[in-house]
């Protein structure tokens, strides 16, 4: 057990715990913030695995951008808070399936890689230059494809999220398909009007 192992275990515990909090938190904003902690932990894991550039990208993209994006998403949709509304009735099934899968995965991982050690020496930090060379030589075509995909996703997201033309600035009043959610019906009915008046226009 090297010092590296100890550090890793600490990081792993924090990461795992934050992940669990992410999926169980009753507060949406807390969930998003715990996601941030989880992502930071994963970034630390990357550092421990000597992937410093990936770690940096992880921090910049995930922590810096995606977490904020989620927070905005949560705020804009103003979802209600509470276990009943946040968790579906599939929760028991999800628990069983996930636990079973985790158990099986752990068994398989230990059986398959239990004896593997990383190279005895300290992990060599792969330089950014190597990464760049790999991306722009071997993987240049996938790289271009990915960039095209990113562009397409950008356009698609804009197209999907923009307000439909022809509205007079307020949200069209819509009714949920299923009115049967009695406890939240009132709230749902009020929502469009609030949004219309509370909007920037």
């Amino acid at each position, binding site marked *: 057990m090297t010092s590296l192992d100890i550090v890793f275990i600490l990081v792993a515990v924090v990461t795992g715990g934050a992940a669990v909090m992410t999926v169980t938190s009753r507060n949406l904003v807390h969930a998003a913030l715990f996601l941030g902690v989880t992502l930071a932990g994963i970034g630390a894991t990357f550092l421990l695995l000597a992937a410093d550039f990936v770690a940096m990208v992880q921090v910049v993209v995930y922590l810096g951008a995606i977490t904020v994006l989620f927070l905005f998403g949560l705020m804009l949709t103003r979802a209600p808070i509470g276990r009943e509304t946040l968790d*579906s009735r*599939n929760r028991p*099934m*999800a628990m069983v*399936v996930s636990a*079973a*899968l985790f158990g*099986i995965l752990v*068994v*398989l991982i230990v059986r398959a890689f239990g004896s593997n050690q990383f190279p005895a020496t300290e992990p060599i930090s792969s330089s950014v230059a190597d990464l760049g060379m790999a991306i722009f030589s071997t993987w240049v075509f996938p790289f271009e494809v990915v960039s095209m995909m990113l562009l397409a996703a950008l356009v698609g997201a804009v197209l999907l999220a923009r307000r439909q033309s022809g509205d007079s600035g307020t949200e069209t009043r819509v009714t949920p398909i299923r009115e049967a959610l009695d406890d939240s019906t009132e709230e749902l009915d009020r929502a469009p009007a609030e949004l219309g008046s509370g909007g920037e226009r």
Partner: protein
Amino acid sequence: MEAGLQALDYAWLVVLLPFVAAVVIAAFGRLMPLKGSEVGIAAMAIAWVTSLVIGFQTFANGPVDALEQTFWTAPVGGLTIEFGQYVDGLTAMMLVLVTTVSLLVQLYSREYMHGEDRFTYFFAMLSLFTFSMLVLVIAPNTLQAIVGWELVGVCSYLLIGYYWREKSNVDAANKAFLVTKFADIGLLVGVIVLSVGVSAHTDNVFSISETIELAMAGELSSLTVIMGCLFIFLGAVGKSGQMPLHVWLPDAMAGPTPVSALIHAATMVTAGVFFVARLYPVFIQELVVMNVIAIVGVITLFFAGFLAIVQDDIKKVLAYSTVSQLGYMMAALGVGGYTAGIFHLFTHGFFKALLFLGSGSLIHAIHSNNMSDMGGMRRYMPWTFVTFLIGSLALAGFPLTAGFFSKDEILVSAQIWADNGLAMGTWVFWLGLAGALVTTFYMARSIFLIFFGEHRGVPARPSARTVADIEAEEASGVLDPQAEGEDLAQAAHDPDTSPTTGLGGHHAPHESGWQILTALVVLAVLSFPVGLAGGFLWDEVGGSTERNFETWTATHAIEEATYPFLPGADEHSEEGGEGEHAEEEGADEGEAAGLPGGPDDVALAAGPATTVLAAESAEGEISNHVLHGAPEFHLDVFVLALIAFLAAVAGAWAIYGRGHRERDPVLHMGGLTTVLVNKYYLDDIGYRGVVVPIRDHLAPATSWSSNVVLDGIVKGVGGGVKRLANVTYHTVDQKIIDGGVNGAAFSAAWWSNKLKHLQSGDVQRYAGAMLAGVIVLVVVFAAAR
């Protein structure tokens, strides 16, 4: 690649450009300042220059080895369809002819079609039409040739029916399409027969060059060659307007005049002659094939000429003239005159285009197709007169014009054929001579009727359309697509011409504009040198006997081809072209046969000309090689042709030269006129022989047999089956089968009602179920290891 032949690599460009032009015009033509015509003309000009370079290079180096290239192969089942180019002298000649005529026709159409509704469409179609013909011309295999051949048919259909508002034009287009289509079946069958024959020896079954090689090597069976060639010839008969399938050609005059010029000079009717020439080494393998070609050709050239005499419509005169000239070409090919036939094709292309465009110029000015409405035009339209006169002289074979050389060459070829003891040569010679006389007569008649005498304006004959008729038609909104209507429609668009509408003779007709005249003058000027290129005066005007039309268009295959049915063929093939003994035998026989009815020295004079390899073989021998050499000057033929020419002109002058006559003698020859006016009743025979029997006899008979015999059987069987079915229905079907089916349906409904709840619409449950399945699978596989 031989030195000096680099341009051949770019023959595909000549083909591609018109296609690109057609697409561009169709797509963007309406947006362009000149409505797309500039694109067509520019593309055609580039193609024309390219063709000229190709033409000159092949001319300077001829005979050249064919350049065969494949650009694209499409495997279809076991076959491979190839598209490529096959460029030799013959191809180069056709490229020059087609692009030249097409370029001038397009320039001409700029003025002629000015103001038409579908001006842009018209130019797109012209380019497409040219493209189609060029695809055929450079085809390296018969399949590509068929593609081009059919495209030509479709384009001609679209252009003949250009004035589609008038039903008669649509009928004409349909007729042209159906008649040529009928003949195309022959082409298809012929190509298949040949390819099956070839397939025994090579995989490339459609290759023209391989077919020719195998045929020359005698590898193809006699039956294959006869059947294949005769069926292909049927296709050529239809496309090239040979009797009796020429009936579509005069009706095709319904199209605009530039289209007529294009069809008759370059892009359509020449296809049949060209294709026969392309496969010529195959055709010459069998005497019966040659004889059929010669017979059809000679019948066509002789009888079609008479039809032209009685026509009043100038375009119909020219149409029958074309049929007749095509007969000359076919007859020449049928008597071994390869060079003569395609030389006539070449020269005819120029002067027939000239004549059609000239007639278009007249129609443009007069607004009538009828010669009886013209008269005295030489005063109003001097340029048109001079050029039309030149074209007519060339067609009639006046000395030093293009037609003179080519027609004399055909006659000389026929003479040589006769010298070789083949009777068909005699027939072609004398009937060809008579046909030349007829040709001269009807052209002289046309010239006198159109350009001399007084301008007649609208004729008094009740059969003719009066101004009132036409105006009434115009008022009723019916656009008459015949030339009169076409010009009225145009006059309506064109303020320049409408006041001078020549109907009624109130206004003097005026000369056409520069675009029309340019085309006319260029073609008129060309009518001389194109003849010299192959004529026997070539060396006397400073050319070289080493380089003439013969060396231009002859391929090596043609040079080496021999007639198996001529004496000496066996020895020849054994000794690889050195069978001198056999050639001497042939010479003896040829001299012994002489020219029936002709002077004795004709045969002797014909001697040297008959052999292609004149330089290599001894003087005075007749080989069994293909007669593709440029014949030398034959005084007797020249004199006979000139006498025929002068006699015909004199006759025409005697009848028409002294002003207009109320009674046109050719229309008052009793039964003969009746026969001619009714076009030998060929259309009627077609109608009564094919349409009526099918409609009135075959169809009712079929109907009766269907109603009585077949229905009886059917009803009897039906009744019995019905009774059996009743029994089956009530017992087997209702009780057993229906019970089973209903039971199955009910059980399916019950189960699906239960199972539908699995489809909850809850994606998370789906995900969970999927994951559970994955877990099970992982466990199973892990346990299995």
